[in-house]
């Protein structure tokens, strides 16, 4: 019996540790982040039929809608939608196998692939619909597997997956900083999507440190939006609608 486990209760105000800000005003919807994510995180491609049927494995997708009718029609700014790493995530408590849990060290929603038995309750309960399920064992013909990132587990059939905020990069950077006996600095590393974004619309960093770039951006913009905040999910991604 381990009585020393601290019980953490997240309050309404508490922010997470890692966060992201996305400036929709400059997001061009170019899909570079989507491609970067797929390359970094060993995402499977699923082919035309499955992709069209809503089974694509994208961890990040760019949403866009239309406003008005021709000729006054406008495309709404691209809205990159990925796991919002909720502070109080609806996906977590419903997993019967503890496959998706809250990391107290990193304040992220973890998906432990090997623990997943595939009930898909988490995905069902995710208000952002950002979880993807391995509906099949999607084939990567040889030699495509050569590009697999050894830092990221290759998922197989029947397992849920989602954006991890590139936790492998977090660990790598933390490990590097530790080996050099220093603290991790802001901007030392970033997620694959933020790294690729040609418009620099995505910024990643510590939202619990007031001096970090993300915190500064949130303060400066002043009108950031968190999606479906009204559900009390405490998301870690802030969107600037701009315009």
């Amino acid at each position, binding site marked *: 019996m*381990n009585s*020393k*486990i*601290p019980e953490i209760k997240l309050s309404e105000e508490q922010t997470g540790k890692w966060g992201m800000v996305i400036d929709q005003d400059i997001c061009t919807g170019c899909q570079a982040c989507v491609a970067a994510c797929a390359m970094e995180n060993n995402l499977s491609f699923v082919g035309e039929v499955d992709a069209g049927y809503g089974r694509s494995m994208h961890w990040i997708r760019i949403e866009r809608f239309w406003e008005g009718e021709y000729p006054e029609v406008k495309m709404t700014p691209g809205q990159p939608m990925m796991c919002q790493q909720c502070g109080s995530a609806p996906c977590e408590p419903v997993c019967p196998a503890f496959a998706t*849990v809250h*990391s*107290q*060290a*990193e304040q*992220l929603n*973890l998906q*432990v*692939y*090997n*623990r997943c038995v595939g009930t898909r309750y988490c995905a069902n309960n995710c208000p952002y619909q950002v979880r993807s399920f391995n509906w099949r064992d999607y084939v990567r013909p040889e030699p495509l597997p050569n590009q697999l990132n050894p*830092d*990221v*587990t*290759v998922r197989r059939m029947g397992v849920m997956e989602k954006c*991890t905020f590139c*936790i*492998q990069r977090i*660990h790598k950077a933390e*490990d590097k900083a*530790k*080996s050099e006996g220093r603290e991790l600095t802001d901007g030392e590393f970033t997620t694959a999507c933020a790294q690729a974004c040609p418009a620099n619309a995505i910024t990643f960093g510590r939202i619990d440190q007031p001096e970090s770039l993300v915190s500064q951006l949130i303060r400066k913009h002043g009108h950031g939006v968190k999606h479906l905040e009204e559900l009390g999910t405490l998301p870690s991604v802030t969107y600037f609608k701009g315009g």
Partner: protein
Amino acid sequence: MFKRLFDWLRQPLGLIAVGIVLLTVFSLAAYGIFLTQQSSAQPIQFPHRTHVGFGIQCLYCHPGAARGPSAGIPSQAKCWGCHQQIAKTQTSALLAPLKQAVESGTPIQWVPVAMVPDFVQFNHRAHVAAGQNCEDCHGDMTLVTIAENPQVFNMGWCLDCHRKAAGEDEAKLLKLADCGTCHY
């Protein structure tokens, strides 16, 4: 016909026979599964004991352990660096595979001994930096010829050590016992 067979099976001798058949089938199945879990033999009967006995440090051949996630298998050039100066290399039957591999330029097909599953992200560096010695996990290499792992690397075993390492430090425990520390 069937009825006679059925009747025969119902008497004690028949029941014993059924039992024996079931037991045999089950044992064979279990053995079959057991066989699939066995790794094959090493290409070279590498005697860790001898090498450690010469005073060679673990990190001499596996320097990756201090630097990064993987300890690594030494390159064949490294093996040859010493062995080409040793006369026995040319004669010993046990060393023939090494000689052959180096001369023909074919890689040696080592069979990994210490492995964690693919969904576990293990980093040697952090463990070495935390003061773990190689033998804490891999056993005392002075005692073995062909390396074999003294324990199964399962999650309970990992966590046991992580908990001890954390001691009373709550923040450290949170970090060391976080699912996301190893699984992503």
